[in-house]
């Protein structure tokens, strides 16, 4: 579930009401498959790649991508998770607590990092993630993979790999899971 997004947008912690299914489980599987191949195409030396899933929505996508890349190339791709709570720019403006732990198993210096998230919206989470990554070493390059790009960027951030471009209204909410991608609304509890 788009837990983070729901926590970020008022009414905080509201209830997600699904409206339209835009991708089903099979669509999500194919998009993951395609993105994995695009990552291999752009980074021929996959042993240098580290996939970092953003907690919590990006973690399962990073795991799937690593799995597919492993199957195709035979390389084990390094996998990490990142929680950006302490790097956010809205600390103090709304409740900000970490959702899960950060686990980056190796020094990122000289590696190609692919940040993985479920839904790209304002770009502020990714901005926080870029700052957080810098504390784990100087990566050779950082790329961004997202299942859904829903627009409404507030920062100059652009994804490298996209599952689906999805035009949305600002007040809508997008929920991306393995079972599919759903647009809906958040209502107060």
């Amino acid at each position, binding site marked *: 579930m788009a837990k983070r997004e729901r*926590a970020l947008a*008022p*009414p*905080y*912690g509201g209830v997600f009401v699904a409206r339209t299914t835009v991708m089903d489980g099979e669509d999500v599987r194919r998009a993951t498959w395609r993105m994995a191949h695009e990552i291999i195409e752009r980074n021929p030396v996959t042993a240098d790649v580290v996939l970092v899933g953003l907690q919590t929505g990006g973690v399962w996508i990073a795991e799937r991508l690593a799995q597919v890349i492993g199957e195709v190339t035979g390389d084990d791709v390094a996998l990490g998770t990142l*929680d950006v*709570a*302490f*790097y956010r720019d809205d*600390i*103090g*403006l*709304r*409740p*900000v*607590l*970490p959702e899960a*732990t*950060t*686990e980056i198993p190796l*020094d990122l210096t000289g590696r190609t990092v692919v940040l993985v998230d479920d839904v790209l919206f304002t770009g502020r989470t990714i901005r926080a993630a870029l*700052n*957080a990554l810098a*504390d*784990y*070493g100087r990566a050779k390059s950082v790329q961004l993979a997202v299942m859904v790009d829903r627009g409404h960027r507030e920062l100059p951030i652009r994804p490298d790999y996209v599952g689906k471009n999805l035009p949305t209204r600002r007040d809508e909410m997008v929920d991306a899971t393995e079972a599919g991608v759903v647009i809906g609304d958040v209502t107060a*509890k």
Partner: protein
Amino acid sequence: MTVGTTTGTSATGTTTGSAGAPSTIAQADQPRAGRHLLSIADLGAEGIDEVMKLTDSFVEVSSRSIPKVPALRGKTVVSLFFEDSTRTRLSFETAARRLSADVMTFSSSSSSLKKGESLRDTVQTIEAMGIDAVVVRHGGSGVPWQVSRWVHGPSVINAGDGWHEHPTQALLDCYTIRQQQRARGIKSVPTLQGLRIAIVGDVRHSRVARSDVIAFAALGAHVTLVAPPTLLPASLVGWPVDVSHDLESVLPKLDVVYLLRLQKERMIEALLPSLREYTATYGLTRQRADLLPEGALIMHPGPVNRGVEIAAEVADLPASVITNQVANGVAVRMAVLYLLLGSGVDLAAA
């Protein structure tokens, strides 16, 4: 209890009241229990659990090559210590710096207190400089509470007051026990349910014991106090504890033995015949440590009087987690500072 991401209240110390939405300012005018950490009892089991969970994240931060996050950039924390302290003050200041907060250190010996300035004026002077949190240690019980009545913006954190409480010590003790349980493969232990913990020594003068008893009991542990009658509080009415005067009979049943420092500086009355006699009856000697079951922990809040309440060699046994306690102190205090100043989540039950 309003812990969790559902609350929209901001717990930031908007000291100057210059920024923030109108609703935030209106709320800031209301006194909120969750803004301060004065007693461990304010937290309850749920609040302690919230701190524990957040501490996991800060343990990870502390393990990095750059152990610093920008979470509290622009916030100022003052440590206001009227009593000597090494670990607590350094631990709080390290915690604040690792959160990128600015730190001011106040020490009573080099301040205008020497010129006769009152505590209230000192506190108000510091508040006027625009700060977000005051960490208070004082020999008088209740001083942090009193300071919290005087200030309007900043959060007040009790770093030990007289014989009353030392809440962050209790938090780091709970965290250390849980961490050790996890290291032993006991997964997902959200509480200390069913653990048998003995607190041994000078309970009477110990703020650590008071906070620990509340915290351990809130998390479901069974607490036994072991001390000579003269070193127990005058009344134990309402304490969720058993009392024993025989350490050797208690030791074989324990999961944790928690030794208190014998506070020689507080021994104004003749409460003990001699230190040697205390050690002979209540000290954790090597022979007594061998009575502990496999896997039991030895804890101590420090500073350790080696050879008095604990034998020198016992403090260095693998079962002793005294240095883990100190290491966890920084992460726990980061969690407390972040919850009070950054997270926007009310720490305590209102």
